[in-house]
């Protein structure tokens, strides 16, 4: 299993998009989460993401853009190296959150509902 700690990126998660401010969910996904997920996928192993160590907590926008955005990218038709389902994205992730255990279910919800959110944004 490969692993990733959000606290190595920041202990003060920012807004959703890069244009909105520093340490955004979009930046975390592009720089850390997606590359790590790609490596885990290629080696057919799981990716452990540790959410502990934040000074205040996570805004929903950061988590949704990180994990929901990852899912939207990987479920898109034609995505390279593969297009997979929301459940497959979730199955490859192992979320660790000892500081706030409820985050695990929250991330799961963002992953499984990622494309429902995309449809709301389009409308």
């Amino acid at each position, binding site marked *: 299993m490969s692993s990733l700690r959000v606290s190595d990126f920041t202990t003060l998660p920012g807004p959703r998009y890069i244009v909105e401010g520093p340490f955004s969910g979009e930046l975390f996904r592009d720089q850390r989460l997606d590359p790590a997920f790609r490596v885990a996928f290629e080696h057919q192993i799981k990716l452990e993401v540790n959410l502990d160590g934040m000074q205040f907590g996570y805004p*929903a*926008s950061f988590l949704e853009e990180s994990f929901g955005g990852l899912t939207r990218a990987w479920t898109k038709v034609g995505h390279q190296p593969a297009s997979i389902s929301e459940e497959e994205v979730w199955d490859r992730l192992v979320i660790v959150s000892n500081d706030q255990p409820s985050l695990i279910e929250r991330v799961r919800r963002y992953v499984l509902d990622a494309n429902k959110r995309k449809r709301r944004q389009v409308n």
Partner: protein
Amino acid sequence: MSNLWTAIATGIAFGLGWVARSYFINPVIPATVVFQALIAIGVAWLIHSALRRNAELSKVPIAAADTACERINELTNECLAKPNGTLGNDPELVLMLRRLDNEVSWLCLVATTLGCKSSANDMLRNSYEELYDAASLDKVIDHSRCLPAGQRVRARTLRLQWEISELTLKGAGNASRLRGAIHKLTD
């Protein structure tokens, strides 16, 4: 309860006086009868003590639930009081939501351990998640969604508080289960 206490104390004093008069001063009642009366008083005392002990111990989980509910209401109000335009990733708001999450989790743990229906727990958890998303999913806090979500949090908290009180008062076994769960958490 204090009236019962007074009544029992009076009864004991009367009984002792009766024993003194009947057995020592003017023994017209057989000793066995007096002895049986004393045994009856003793048994009544033990039953009263056990009931009182259970009543006192039952206050512990109810008080714990009361404290959690009070904090949930306070934190919900603080979130709703945030001005329009507050950023969704505002550190104070995010911390408040995290503290609220902790209190909701604690209340749900107490409720589950005491045997509350899982639907009541799930409903409270769902309304918290609604409030969390309404407050911090977008760039700024969305009060149009926060206000109804906050109302649901408060209503479902009250419902759970009621269930906890009912279950606690139903039997000492429920309170003991919670005690066991707390020991596991703290060991």
